């Protein structure tokens, strides 16, 4: 497997608590709740969504009465249609919630941590992703942008899908082809997508890529073509980073994370409060994020991304864009 590699020796990270030690060959069995079940941080999804301020798009619409008006228009179709992501939040990753048992609470809340101090811009992540998902060159589901810091030096910024908690891409799809799973993954149903591309317009991170021509052909896959594993892609529909959703229930981390030679990417789980990188280092997520002043990209857009960036000296995410 691609992420069966030698552990790269890295300088020790400030404030990193390695709780689980090294786990075997990139697997995330360490992410099960019994390993480290305590979370004291505001990172907990339920807590953070309660304490969130402001009005989300859907709530705004509900308050503005748009839903009511639209409801009057179509009658019975309403309850199903109201509020895109609520209706879309179907449990498609049932296989992924194996650890939940009888509890309705999902076992995981996936997130990603990107340590910009270590990324060297090699784009191995992009290539690994494109190889695994059989993508064209321009479909950079995880793109690596070259940035300039305040003193004019170059640094690199990988950008996967942010797996927004309030994803505008889901909100705008006319046919509910986008949805958010109960484990926090935003996915595209390519057998329903009609290709209006309004989600590409809505995503503030330009994380969506269209299939402008015939999709790259792929050999037989271990899974059928499904939102969790959209391989091969479907011509005329939108694709984007999926956090390798089909791999997660099998205890495997996404291709980009597992292949990063610099250990700059971590796959994390807010539910169990752990994250793991390519070398198998497991960190206590909340402490790591707090100690390293993690930030989210374009937080002012109200999307509540689930990708956390750790910034190096003088770096920023260019967050000063105009927001809604």
């Amino acid at each position: 497997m691609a992420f069966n590699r030698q552990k790269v020796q890295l300088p020790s990270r400030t404030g990193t608590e390695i709780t689980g030690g090294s786990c075997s060959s990139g697997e995330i069995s360490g992410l099960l709740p019994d390993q480290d079940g305590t979370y004291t941080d505001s990172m907990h999804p339920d807590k953070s969504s309660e304490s969130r301020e402001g009005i989300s798009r859907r709530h705004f619409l509900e308050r503005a009465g748009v839903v009511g008006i639209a409801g009057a228009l179509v009658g019975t179709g309403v309850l199903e249609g109201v509020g895109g992501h609520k209706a879309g939040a179907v449990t498609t990753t049932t296989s992924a919630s194996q650890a939940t048992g009888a509890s309705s609470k999902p076992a995981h809340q996936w997130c990603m941590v990107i340590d910009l101090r270590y990324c060297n811009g090699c784009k191995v992540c992009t290539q690994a992703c494109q190889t695994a998902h059989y993508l064209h060159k321009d479909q950079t589901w995880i793109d690596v942008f070259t940035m300039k810091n305040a003193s004019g030096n170059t640094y690199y910024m990988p950008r996967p899908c942010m797996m927004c908690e309030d994803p505008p891409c889901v909100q705008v799809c006319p046919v509910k082809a986008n949805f958010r799973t109960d484990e926090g993954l935003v996915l595209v149903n390519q057998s329903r997508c009609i290709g209006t591309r309004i989600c590409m317009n809505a995503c503030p991170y330009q994380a969506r890529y269209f299939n402008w021509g015939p999709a790259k052909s792929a050999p037989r896959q271990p899974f059928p073509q499904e939102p969790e594993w959209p391989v091969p892609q479907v011509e005329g529909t939108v694709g984007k980073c999926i956090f390798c959703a089909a791999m997660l229930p099998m205890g495997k981390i996404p291709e980009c994370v597992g292949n990063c030679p610099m250990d700059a990417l971590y796959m994390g789980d807010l539910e169990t409060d752990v994250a793991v990188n390519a070398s198998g280092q497991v960190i206590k997520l909340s402490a790591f994020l707090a100690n390293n002043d993690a930030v989210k990209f374009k937080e002012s857009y109200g999307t509540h991304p689930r990708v956390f960036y750790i910034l190096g000296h003088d770096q920023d995410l260019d967050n000063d864009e105009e927001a809604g």
Partner: protein
Amino acid sequence: MTRKQVDTMETGTSTTMTSRTLEKSIKSAYDGVDPVPPREDIREAAMRPVLETGKWWWTAVITLGVVVIAGIVAWVMQLRDGLGSAGYNNQAFWAIYEADLVAFIGVTYGGAVVSAVLRLTKARWRAPLTRIAEATALVTLPIGMMFIIPHLGESPRIWELVWPPYWNLSSPILWDFFAVSTYLLATVVFFYLPLIPDLKITLERLSAGPDNLKTRICKKLYAIVGNNWIGSIPQRRVLHGALGLISIMIIPMAVSVHSVLSFAFSSSSRAGYLETIFPVLFVVGALYSGVALVIVMAAAFRRGYRLERYITEKHFVRLGFILIALGATYLYLTFTEYLVDGYSGTIGNAAWVRQTIMGRYWIPFWFFVVGAGLLPLVILAFRRTRNVKGIATASVIILLAMWVKRLVIVIPPATEPLVKSPLNVASANWGTFHFTWIPITITLAATAAIPLLLLVVFKFFPILPVADMEEMAAETEGLEEDLSTLSVMASTGNGSSGNRKEIIHANI
């Protein structure tokens, strides 16, 4: 006026010949006879397209038909090769088809304004133009809606838009879809209502002519949709009421359609799309290009069917003044948008404004400013160019420039990178839209489809609103009669009750 009053009038002491015949005609109007005298000249002119099929008609239809077929071929090619063959890429994810959608649905507004607004404001001069305006709206709206098909990446799945279980009501695309469908219904009704009396007249004409396949089809059709018209006063009253109502209804409907259309852009967080001015800008832009299209179509059909006697230069000059007002407003709104966004100077806004005004989109932008802003003003300002030819030319330029403006609305903000990396903008793979023959052919085909469908529509329906014009003529004549009666009264000292104008008015 009640029946009783009419009876009283008949037994009354009117002395002049005019009023006696008049009263007879009123009584018969209540018994189900048309009180408005027919005008042979108007009827002949209005039926001309229906009855005569010149060589040029066939030439025009075949030429335009070839262009339309070329468009369909282009669309099939696009289906085969994917949307990328139309010049799109991940940066220019929206471009020409979206601009076409806005532009073609926009021009339908011309029908609404020329017909409904002028009807409501009781501008009598509108009468000869209304049928052409309404028919233009009727044919352009479906053509505009057709652009949804090439716009979609997976157009075979278009049925999902009309499948309620799939509806996501928080999607602006669905709002568009509802708004445009409702508007289509209203446009059909708005075309049909004033047509009802004319259908009867057409039927009479056709019955007098030779009996062929076309007349038989028409007779069948009109028998279903318009055979019950007798033109009596109660019927006219109902029709006028309904027309007034739909005129009032179609204006907010058209406003909502064009503003909802803008929501697809303005409800996103993208700098350059997130503009609260967009709904207004889109509505005014639609009005502006819509009036221009009505002018072009009126000029063409007036020439083709020799309607100079009815559609006069005065009509064009008046519409031209409406154009100036709308054009100036549109230019000002655009200026406001650019000023506010450029002045605020936030990274995203400053970037797209700079790219548009002096960056890689400067040519189309300034083409718009000159073509839709300055040139029409110049043409209409001088008396020498303020004639049918000049105004029609100005309108063609406006239509072209406004289409380009829609491209300028859609493309620059879409191609503005959202991750502001310095190398991102400069990198070679950061694309913009590249015109290919496919979308251009499809756009041309849609343009050709407008006159083509109009040529066909006027083969079946009179090009002038006969009943409306006859009513106007009767009013004018009534006025003249009134004046002559007055002068008779003045010379003889005899009083006369009523005149045609007053009676028709009082009853309708």
